[in-house]
């Protein structure tokens, strides 16, 4: 058990290291000079003032130091939780900018991932080997999972937001509201959250349903299912076993898909002007704010790594085979 988690942690550690290094490396080899573009945006009229500002910022961001020092400083700052200062939202620290966006992204990603997983699995399991459902409803699943997230999102925003007027098309909560602890405010949050959630949920739902449908068919055709049928066990029991066993690869699938789902959330946020990481990343790209971009990237990597680790733990708890394997009890 210790060895298993030790290995996993090593991999995650290495991954983080690679991510950080890549993160540090890329902007330093890219064309263009972020300080120059920032200063240009400042729209300062006089050349002398520009030079002063430029030197000042170069110094501030540490771009005038040797590369190795910059790299060491980068790690040092990172370990202190300091992601640097946003260029675009100067002088707000990146961690603060991200901190403001993260609750929204989490509120979008976590429920949509978990709910779509649960509902999709139930649905796929239910449809499998039931001819009518399999041939009518499941094709919808294929269509959903093949949809580009943003396409569905835009269509939803347009149809349910602009045309039907049922939902707002932008923002994390009404622009007329101020955050407060009240039922009204909570409902308002929920109201704004619904469409982005829905578009993420639907696309992911289709994928899980199809995956589960296929998995469970394998399980239903497996030897233990056949054996149970031969012993006259009711379909209910067999399906229950099959579901339980088919869920295991779906858990692995969840880990594999996490990155994709987060990415989907980012794009969806952009469509709904939802004030999460996605909108932030888009703006960071448009404004060449590489400190912010790096921060957001690292945050996502960290989030995905943590989620992966949680999934690892869950998997070990749920699948006796891994546990048995780790205990080395091979009789």
């Amino acid at each position: 058990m210790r060895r298993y988690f030790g290995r996993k942690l090593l991999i995650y550690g290495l991954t983080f290291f690679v991510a950080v290094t890549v993160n540090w490396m890329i902007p330093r080899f890219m064309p263009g000079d972020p300080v120059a573009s920032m200063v240009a945006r400042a729209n300062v009229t006089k050349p002398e003032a520009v030079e002063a500002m430029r030197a000042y910022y170069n110094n501030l961001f540490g771009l005038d130091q040797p590369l190795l020092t910059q790299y060491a400083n980068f790690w040092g700052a990172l370990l202190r939780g300091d992601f640097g200062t946003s260029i675009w939202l100067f002088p707000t620290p990146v961690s603060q900018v991200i901190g403001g966006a993260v609750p929204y992204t989490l509120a979008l990603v976590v429920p949509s991932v978990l709910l779509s997983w649960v509902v999709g699995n139930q649905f796929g399991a239910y449809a499998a080997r039931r001819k009518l459902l399999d041939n009518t409803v499941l094709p919808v699943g294929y269509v959903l999972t093949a949809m580009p997230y943003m396409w569905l999102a835009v269509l939803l925003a347009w149809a349910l937001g602009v045309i039907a007027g049922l939902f707002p098309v932008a923002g994390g909560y009404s622009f007329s509201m101020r955050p407060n602890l009240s039922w009204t405010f909570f409902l308002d949050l929920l109201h704004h959250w619904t469409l982005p959630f829905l578009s993420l949920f639907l696309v992911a739902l289709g994928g899980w349903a199809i995956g589960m449908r296929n998995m469970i068919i394998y399980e239903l055709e497996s030897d233990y299912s056949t054996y149970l049928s031969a012993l006259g066990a009711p379909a209910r029991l067999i399906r229950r076993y099959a579901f339980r066993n088919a869920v295991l690869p779906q858990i692995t699938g969840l880990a594999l898909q996490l990155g994709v789902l987060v990415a989907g959330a980012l794009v969806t946020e952009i469509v709904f002007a939802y004030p999460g990481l996605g909108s932030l990343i888009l703006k960071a790209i448009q404004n060449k704010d590489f400190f912010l971009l790096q921060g957001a990237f690292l945050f996502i990597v960290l989030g995905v790594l943590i989620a992966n680790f949680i999934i690892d733990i869950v998997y070990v708890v749920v699948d006796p085979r891994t546990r048995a394997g780790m205990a080395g009890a091979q009789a």
Partner: protein
Amino acid sequence: MTTIQEAVPRERAAVRREALYFAVRNGKLMTGLTIVLALLLLGLIGPLFVAAAPNEYSVKAMSPPTGEHWFGTTTFGQDIFAQFVHGLRATFAVGVVGGGIAAVIGMVVGFVAGYVGGLVDEVLNMLTNIVLVIPSLAVLLIVNAYLGIRSVAVQGLFIGLTQWPWAARAIRAQTFSLRTREFVDLARMSGSGTGRIIAREIAPNMSSYLFMTFILLFGGSVLIASSLDFIGLGPTEGVSLGLMLQNANQWSALQLGMWWWFVPPGAAITAIVGALYVANVGLDEVFNPKLRET
């Protein structure tokens, strides 16, 4: 997300004959293939018959579909059908390049790790796991934002470079199970080298599996490319369905009632990817009798 089941070595010719028999009778496979091929064909020959260059302005701006402009025109009077057929090309290209590169890397890593085993496996496995957990779209965002993507091919390349790990993992597992089979032992005893054994014995025995892997990678690449295009990190040259979506959205096509601009590219992406997935399930049923509907 579709799982592929273990490939079982059997007499190849018979398998092929049987597979073909079931293939042409498999509704899922045929429907999927028909849609994909129809769109591919449109992408291939369409541009030859459409006179207008995809970005050329014509006089009639914001025109709904007419006999002259089948899919209408954009805000600037560009012919959407022309963009659409060119976009299809780019989208298929990104799928082929991205899916192809990912499949090749996945196969090389998977075969070598699975067949050679030992330290090589350890190292490759670790590499795979690392690339696997890094959220690939986030990486692509960073890379694209900094380096800029010029052409569809480069976009496909980058997508391919990030998409291979799950394929490698799956192929490794398959290779692992085939490695100890008699026919592989036999080949090894008769003195074949590693490369030869992989190419002659192992790969052909999981060819259906490899093909399905490629299909999934292809679909994935198309979707990722469209996301990148949409947030403005697409290729700066040429037309793709994702770029069309981005443009339509940027110029508020839906709000201005120009559904003919926004709907076709998204629908085409959905159709291509969805049809591929459906075809993949169909293939799975063809190769794996247990899954056929009874």
